[in-house]
């Protein structure tokens, strides 16, 4: 009786500590959508089934190991088959599995129903950033790693959201069905936010879909889950879920800002303006390969500082940024950056780090180049 009580107490405290652990970032998050909750409960159900089977199986095993020791003079029995027992322990797991397959099938069907969405967002993976297009809303932007490289190199203290912060978060409304369409410009990436229970590969040449209806406003963080090259660890995702009205205001503001920037294409930009904007773009987009000081990482990523071939040939510089380099790591930025950003970053590269070419590239020139 006392042994039984000790075992019972031990079992309960173990189960208790598992419960505590779950609340402290040791377990899959419950998340903030109905589906993420369903997935979490499937996870916990199968987990406890495994624990129960484990207790029985390992219980019998360790009982046998202690009880039937050769050193204690145990004499081996002689049985080596029993058809009834064997049929029973084939059938019981089969029944447990069927019991598990039923709720799993239901949840999976729910996940696959992306119909009747209120908002469609095209998510494009690129080495190593995410691009978000609010389809039909004229709003699109690129979301880059927000953590300064100095923190990664250990020259600065880590920030609170080290590696899980971006320059521009994805903004979505709560209580609306948001459908994500996933594709990629280069290799396979995978867009994953644990609190939303969405993980979907973004595959070049394919469009995958998944969806969320978020219950609570908040900031939810995730990152790329499919090995996509050098900076796979450095393409995080931040989702900012807003109340519906706040989201509508945000979307209208973004649309206005986009059209304002579009107007900026036609005017003449001053060198200072271009340099300032160019540095922002460079820090967000180019720095992971070409480094802050433009030294690059040859041979894969050429240096820009003192790159005489580029400085001598302004058109080639523009071509490289707009169209990328075929067969090399340099992507085409024609659809990722707008003409202002392309003009600014080229101007910056031609004048920063002692390049001092004095050239500037105007957004109007890039717009013309893009319309060719």
């Amino acid at each position, binding site marked *: 009786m006392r042994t039984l009580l000790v075992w019972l107490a031990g079992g309960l405290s173990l189960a208790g500590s598992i419960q505590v652990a779950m609340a402290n970032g040791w377990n899959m998050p419950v998340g903030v959508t109905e589906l993420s909750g369903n997935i979490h409960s499937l996870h916990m159900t199968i987990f406890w089934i495994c624990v129960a089977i484990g207790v029985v199986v390992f219980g019998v095993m360790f009982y046998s190991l202690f009880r039937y020791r*050769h050193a204690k003079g*145990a004499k081996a029995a002689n049985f080596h088959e029993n058809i009834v027992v064997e049929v029973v322990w084939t059938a019981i797991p089969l029944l447990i599995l069927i019991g598990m397959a039923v709720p799993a099938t239901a949840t999976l069907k729910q996940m696959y129903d992306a119909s009747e969405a209120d908002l469609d967002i095209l998510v494009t993976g690129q080495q190593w950033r995410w691009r978000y297009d609010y389809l039909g809303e004229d709003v699109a932007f690129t979301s880059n790693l927000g953590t300064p490289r100095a923190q990664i190199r250990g020259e600065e203290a880590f920030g609170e959201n*080290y590696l899980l912060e971006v320059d521009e978060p994805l903004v979505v409304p709560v209580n609306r069905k948001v459908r994500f369409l996933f594709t990629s410009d280069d290799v396979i990436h995978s867009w994953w936010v644990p609190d939303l229970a969405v993980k979907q590969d973004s595959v070049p040449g394919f469009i995958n879909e998944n969806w969320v209806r978020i219950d609570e406003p908040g900031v939810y963080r995730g990152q790329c889950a499919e090995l996509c090259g050098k900076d796979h660890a450095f393409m995080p995702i931040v989702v900012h879920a807003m109340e519906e009205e706040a989201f509508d205001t945000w979307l209208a503001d973004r649309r206005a800002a986009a059209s304002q920037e579009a107007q900026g294409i036609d005017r003449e930009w001053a060198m200072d303006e271009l340099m300032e904007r160019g540095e922002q773009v460079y820090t967000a987009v180019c720095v992971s390969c070409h480094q802050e000081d433009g030294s690059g990482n040859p041979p894969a990523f050429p240096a820009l500082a003192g790159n005489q071939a580029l400085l001598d040939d302004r058109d080639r510089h523009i071509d490289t940024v707009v169209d990328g380099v075929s067969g090399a790591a340099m992507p085409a930025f024609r659809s990722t950056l707008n003409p202002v950003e392309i003009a600014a970053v080229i101007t910056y590269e031609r004048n920063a780090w002692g390049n001092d070419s004095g050239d500037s590239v105007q957004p109007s020139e890039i717009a013309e180049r893009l319309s060719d």
Partner: protein
Amino acid sequence: MATNPAPKPVPQHASTAAGGLAEAHPERPSGLLRWLLTTNHKEIGTLYLIFSLTMFFIGGVFAMVVRAELFQPGLQLVQPEFFNQMTTMHGLIMVFGAVMPAFVGLANWMVPLQIGAPDMALPRLNNFSFWLLPVAFTLLLSTLLMPGGGPNFGWTFYAPLSTTYAPPSTTFFILSLHIAGISSILGAINIIATILNLRAPGMRMMDMPLFVWTWLITAFLLIAVMPVLAGVVTMMLMDINFGTSFFNAAGGGDPVLFQHLFWFFGHPEVYIMILPAFGIVSAIIPTFARKRLFGYASMVYATAAIAILSFLVWAHHMFVVGLPLVAELFFMYCTMLIAVPTGVKVFNWITTLFRGSISFEPPMLFALAFVVLFTIGGFSGLMLAIAPADFQYHDTYFVVAHFHYVLVPGAVFAIMAGVYYWLPKWTGHYPHERLAQWHFWLSVVGVNLTFFPMHFSGLAGMPRRIPDYALQFADFNLVSSLGAFLFGASQLLFVAVVVLCVRGGRQAPAQAWEHAEDLEWSVPSPAPLHTFETPPTFERPAH
């Protein structure tokens, strides 16, 4: 721990007592040439095992680099480019260079001895199969020194990261996989030919030891899937060098096709690495429980069932790649079904222990740890089979924890159990008991410290294959790294035990373990170079 009791008298096979034909070949080359030209299954088995151990340490060093970088957040030791090469090479070397050749080495040594055959059916082919391996892996390792570095796209080498975006050395990587693949296919043909043709008179298929059975089934798996691997890497070769677009979406190709082909090879490959382990454990547990294996026939059927199911589950590696709903359901159900035959095996082992007379020699310790820890890996496998939940588990450290539980305390522990079990037969000496126990306990602690926290870091949101991570994963990674260093260092003890055992130690009789039943224990220890030159008569154990 119990000392090994005196062996019961076993009739020695007549032609083996004097060392068989060894004296009939006085012109045998010596030195290096002897090993290069040998067609003897025991010598080739030894070569395979030494090669495998070497690769185990090289792959292990790569793992240590990975764990050292992940010891704390931030980039300290290596850059992401090199980190990716280390994770990729660690996987490739361990799968193709360490685990698979170790099982082939054990098969070379033990299959002929367990079925009463004088050698493998195709001895020259056997020599060729082995010597392809050092060529393949020298080539593979040399890519690390090439411009642009070695393979950096993960051991699963998904296109187009491994084609359009791969380093120039990828063509060498493809060639090395081709060579290793040919080696595996030839080895498998040899094992099948041996088992089907060279069994002792009177030994029916259903009398074969389970190690022989599991290897027979494994060999068929190898023949079925290695050509698929050869096909897929050839398509990569064409994409890289000859302008085709099998996997290039821009040219009308299909990157997802790569994954279907890879995993059609890759999932049976996973069982190639575990079925022979089942066979080893099924030999060791009855020996040290002094009781016949429970459910021999169901063990054979379960192995066959697992092998057949392994062809129907490949897309469970691809649940988030964008498959249609019916495909997800089909692969989820088939994957869950694998739990049934696997469960049968575990129940059979445990029922063999039940009412046995159990002692804990080193092979038994490793076999028991295998049963417990492989089952834990099986549980996380069952969780991963649940497709909706896999949307959260996929490509996280939860998966890393899962497959390391089935491969390290699974396959690797079974190999070590087999080595400790058969060392007396190979060397004529028992392994050093105390050192072997230290090796066992340090390995068990190290392996769990390394891999158990990975369940938590994965569930909490840490993706696999990243050189740097967010701060909430720091504690888990610290423990994993310390565990990995402990596990890595402990394997030096294994080398010490093996070297000491080859050099000397307590003499082992022919019947090195009191209750061991199979034919290998009827030849002297150490086994002479040639055994069973006239076939033994197989006698079925009385029911």
